[in-house]
């Protein structure tokens, strides 16, 4: 099992750089960042952090091809790969539906699967050869080339997906893996892995070589109740971006969640947080003491997931999003707890 840290880059940049250094020192596999307009620019941040690290890998998780041109993502990736001496990877999808909506884009009319498939071809070609001529339904290029060349022979391209099952199958078929966000139940991950296998088998690939990642919100602290309370304040925000099918895979009736999404839409934060019951929060996060976190990750691991991507929820993030105070260790403290008391329980 690999452990990675995924950040929401809303902290002062110097603080974010310190967190990345800490994750590097503690032996995390990768530091990822969401690549969304809502936050600071993770590419600028990662470039500034690159030479302050030794082993940790870097990448967006995920970057939206609905808003960013695939060849331009490759240009940034290749430059970051050079800066890190070959330590980048890229998780991409069409983008966060909530974000696309703010751009007036209706993802359901954007043929997301075909688009992702084409984008993968474009990015694979541009990264591997530094040039592309292509005539697709969504992307067209004539003699485009770049001097931005990666150090790695093969920069991993991983598809980010939530609803499935077709996106999981496509990931198994063509990409280096699949990172699945915001699921916490065995059922949800079994569904992911089963469909990845279908896609991999279709293409004659060995599914066990794929990077199968669980992108999870975590709040880890010595005080179990406080850690759970911390996670709960953030869960409401994530419910709104989860497809109905995914909620159902957690034994949650989407209709029950509608009032939470509605309250958030109206900007009624307190109501939304109140409506998010402790039971729902428990189902939609990894929260509690290190032992409790280990138990939850064991469940996920049993399905074939081989990579935990942990979005650490700390007092600063909670304050930014909700204005509330919680008392769990800060980001670096939690990273340390995870490295010292969660990671050793796994191979």
């Amino acid at each position: 099992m690999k452990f990675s840290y995924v950040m929401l880059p809303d902290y002062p940049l110097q603080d974010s750089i310190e967190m990345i250094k800490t994750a590097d020192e503690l032996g995390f596999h990768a530091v990822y960042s969401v690549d969304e307009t809502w936050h600071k620019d993770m590419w600028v941040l990662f470039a500034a952090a690159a030479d302050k690290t030794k082993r940790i890998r870097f990448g967006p998780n995920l970057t939206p091809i609905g808003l960013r041109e695939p060849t331009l993502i490759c240009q940034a990736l290749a430059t970051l790969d050079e800066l890190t001496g070959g330590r980048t990877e890229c998780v991409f999808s069409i983008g966060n539906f909530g974000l696309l909506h703010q751009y007036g884009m209706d993802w359901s009319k954007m043929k997301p699967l075909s688009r992702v498939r084409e984008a993968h071809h474009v990015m694979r070609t541009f990264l591997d050869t530094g040039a592309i001529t292509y005539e697709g339904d969504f992307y067209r290029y004539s003699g485009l080339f770049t001097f931005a060349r990666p150090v790695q022979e093969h920069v991993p391209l991983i598809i980010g997906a939530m609803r499935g099952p077709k996106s999981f199958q496509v990931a198994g078929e063509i990409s280096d893996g699949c990172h699945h966000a915001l699921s916490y139940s065995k059922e949800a991950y079994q569904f992911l892995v089963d469909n990845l296998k279908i896609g991999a088998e279709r293409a004659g690939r060995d599914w066990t070589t794929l990077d199968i990642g669980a992108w999870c919100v975590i709040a880890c602290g010595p005080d179990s109740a406080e850690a759970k309370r911390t996670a709960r304040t953030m869960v409401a925000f994530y419910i709104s971006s989860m497809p109905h099918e995914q909620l159902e895979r957690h034994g949650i009736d989407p209709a029950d969640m509608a009032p939470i999404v509605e309250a958030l839409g109206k900007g009624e934060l307190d109501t939304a947080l109140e409506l998010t019951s402790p039971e729902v929060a428990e189902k939609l996060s990894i929260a509690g003491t290190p032992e409790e976190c280990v138990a939850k990750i064991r469940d996920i691991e049993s399905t074939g997931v081989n990579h935990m991507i942990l979005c650490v929820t700390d007092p600063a993030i909670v304050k930014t999003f909700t204005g509330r105070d919680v008392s769990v260790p800060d980001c670096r403290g939690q990273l340390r707890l995870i490295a010292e008391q969660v990671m050793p329980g796994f191979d």
Partner: protein
Amino acid sequence: MILWNSQVSGNCYKVRLLLPQLGIPYERRELSVVDRSNRAELLGGKNPALRVPTLELDDGRCLGESDAILWYLGDGSRYVPEDAFERAQVLQWLATRPSRPGSGASPPSPATLRSTPEEGPMKFSYALLPDHPVTELVDSIVLADELGFYGAYGADETYHKDQWLVAAVAATRTKNIRLSPCVTHVILKEPTILAHSIATLDELSNGRAECVFSIGNIAMLDQYHVDWKSGGQIKRLREAHHVMRTMLDEGKIDFEGDFYRYTGLFTSARPVQEHVPLKIGAMRGPKSFELAGEIADGMHQALAYSKEAMQFASDHVKLGAERAGRDASQLDLGAWMVASISEDSEAAKQAARVVVAFYIPAMPREQIERHGIDPDSLQPIMDAFNLGDVEKAIELTTLELTEKLSLSGSPEEWVERIRTEVIPSGFDHLICAPIDPYLVAAWSGLEVENVPDQQGQLRLIHDHVMPHFP
């Protein structure tokens, strides 16, 4: 050493040119060439002709006549050779070279004075075509910062490494230099995403970010099958400016435009500067120039080298500013140039030639015409590129063409060019993209000798060009 000087005198200019070349410190005393009433008082006993330039040595001895001063200063240096014939050639050049305002017994006529440009303050910036190893690019920006360059402007085109990442690393290692894309582009890149990148860079550099944007290199847009010819691009630029201005100033946006639409979009990426400069990059004009004058913090024109082309741009920027009731003198008028500098003038031109060839397809016809070049005469070069015959395209790009479409040559040629083409056209910011052997080899596989690398050229510009435009 004191130089009795007049800023508008060509003869004084020659002396001011040589002094820094020889590294001789001196003090300047200004005299008017029009109001000569105080001449006797100031120059009496120093120069019987009461003329500038007059050089006053530390021991009190004085010398008049620019050629005599040049000869005196140059003696013992490479400017006055030892070989008798070469020395005579210097005298020959002094006697016959063109444009000698003020030669002969009479002072320069008022007409000559008016046509002689006044040297004004000029900002020098480093333009990156970021193809070198990233660490070298960062080191070059660090040097440019130390040498007092105003900004480091990275070309944000798919062809190169990602200038945003290079600027990010440089931000952590520099103190004063400003950091910006020049240009970035708003068809392939989303303006709100650009704004959040700029804001992040501004935080990282503690308030040194700016942004020059356009619709993008048209040759590159063609490679993406983007239809930029269908019109509306000025409207697009105007909208993009509004979007970026709003996101940078307020951190959020609701907008319903023809090209961009947002509902409740916000960002945590906030700049340090109260007002991050947004400038428009343009080539053809005139509407883009006028738009810049009307709404932006400046205009950077790419690939213009003639006074005609630059004058056309600055006139239209002023027109746009006046129309909007803005003070045009507050705007940053920058000239982005393919540049190459070397003591070996021809070598510099050979280096620039390769990149000039590559940029010809990116130049609109009107822009080419403003350099006294018939666009049709360049068609064979375009055809060669279309057939993938880079070697032929470069061969067809003559040195004469290169001279017109780049700032390349010796430091002396640079100074002359800036003095005669750039300054009179109203531009006050030179953004030089040094073409060095690495770029030439990367773009064409060719080798050039006697041309310094990026850092060497930055030093030459600093040592031998910048002192002329304090």
